[in-house]
């Protein structure tokens, strides 16, 4: 069984159907990048995996253990013990504005994982050091740049030792000159062996960081391949169209 498996995922928003039996596999050594046109369900897929969406059918498993099983509205089964091995960073800033950087990092470990305050603090400082943010530990989110906020958000997720990290367009809201610092942080994390699923519109970054790229459209995987193959020699007409469009727009 693959590290991550999504089988027969069914997701609808009211009458709007996003997935009707969606399948995807990912290995623990993979960094999977999802690309596709706006509205094709990339964010929705990550949100389903994080347990943020009620799914109407299908199963999602991590490390061979199924942790989300869809059912009719409101009856979805979710195993919190495994869900907590998944970390996520969002497109929009989601730091807690009333807490300092350190407070943001330590809240979940101390309040829901029973970690001692001093230990959480040390761990947080270590992470901030690694990200070059140690001098910002006592700052509030409103005093940080967008790039710093996103890197703090990554550090906050890492405090919980996730086995899989999900990134949903984490650089889309940033000024162009701040994109690099966040992408470099993600690259460092990749080099350290963290399995990740990444949604991005930055094709250059996608090609560099991915071990596998998945092109999806209208709730279906159209093509999945190693980055050099998918970008260099796409097999499907729709993949080619999509890439021609985005690469044209990106210049």
């Amino acid at each position, binding site marked *: 069984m693959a590290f991550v498996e999504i089988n027969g995922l069914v997701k609808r928003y009211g009458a709007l159907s996003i997935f009707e039996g969606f399948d995807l596999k990912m290995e623990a050594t993979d960094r999977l990048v999802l690309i596709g046109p706006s509205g094709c369900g990339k964010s929705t897929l990550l*949100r389903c995996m*994080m*347990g*943020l969406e009620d799914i109407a059918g299908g199963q999602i498993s991590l490390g061979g253990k199924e942790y989300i099983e869809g059912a009719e509205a409101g009856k979805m089964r979710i195993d*919190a013990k495994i*869900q*907590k091995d*998944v*970390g*996520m960073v*969002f497109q*929009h*800033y*989601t*730091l*807690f*504005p*009333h807490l300092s950087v350190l407070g943001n990092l330590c*809240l*979940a470990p101390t*309040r*829901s*994982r029973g970690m001692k305050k001093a230990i959480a603090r040390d761990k947080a400082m270590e992470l901030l050091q690694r990200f070059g943010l140690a001098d910002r530990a006592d700052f*509030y*989110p*409103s005093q940080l740049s967008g790039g710093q*906020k996103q890197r703090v958000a990554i550090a*906050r*997720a890492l405090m*919980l030792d996730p086995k899989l990290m999900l990134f949903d367009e984490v650089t889309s809201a940033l000024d162009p000159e701040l994109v690099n610092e966040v992408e470099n942080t993600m690259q460092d994390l990749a080099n350290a062996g963290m399995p990740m699923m990444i949604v991005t519109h930055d094709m250059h970054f996608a090609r560099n960081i991915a071990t596998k790229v998945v092109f999806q459209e209208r709730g279906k995987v159209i093509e999945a391949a190693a980055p050099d193959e998918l970008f260099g020699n796409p097999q499907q007409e729709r993949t080619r169209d999509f890439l021609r469009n985005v690469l044209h727009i990106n210049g």
Partner: protein
Amino acid sequence: MELDFSFLLSYSGVLLQGLSTTLQFVGLAALLGLIWGFVLSLGRTSENHVIYWASTLYVEFFRGTPVLVQLFWVFFCLPLFLGIDLSGFASAVIALSLYSGAIISESFRAALKSIESSQFDACTALGLPRGVQTIFVVLPQAVLRAIPNLLSNVVSLFKESALVSAVGMADLMYVGQNIANNVARPIEILTVVALIYFAIGFPLTRAVSVVEARLLKVVKA
């Protein structure tokens, strides 16, 4: 008409006593009203229909009836229902807490609604249990965002508290009326009473705008 404020000096002790009583029960009622108001606001944003309707009905009832009627009801009817004697002070605190809770819950509700859904997503992604989420993420943000309105609520409560003089509580207003009756100089005494209310209420009102400007900078990350 001749105005003479000099006699007031001999009454300053009683007036201060009245003011102190007012500040005490308003302070207590404001504190209890804040807690009760937050609980009510959670009820009004609850997905549980029973909790939602119970709290909504409560809030609408207390907002939709005269405070004076509520005061009379708590002073004269509540003791009969409970079968116990309540001191005037306790009744004033109870009545004003029940009332201000309803008003304050609206301020909290607006603040709760202004918290972006992405904050709740972040809590889920971090595996925060519901209780931790409410106390450490929702409550502080709701309070920060509600502070300007809450200050206004407290100022209003302070002013409306003069109504308790109608049920014989020796608050600032009641003491003022008493003196006015004794010395037959209602103009001077009522003017002074009004000025005392103003002297305390005005700085609080001003504080609202200062606090508002400062807080918004912090909270809007």
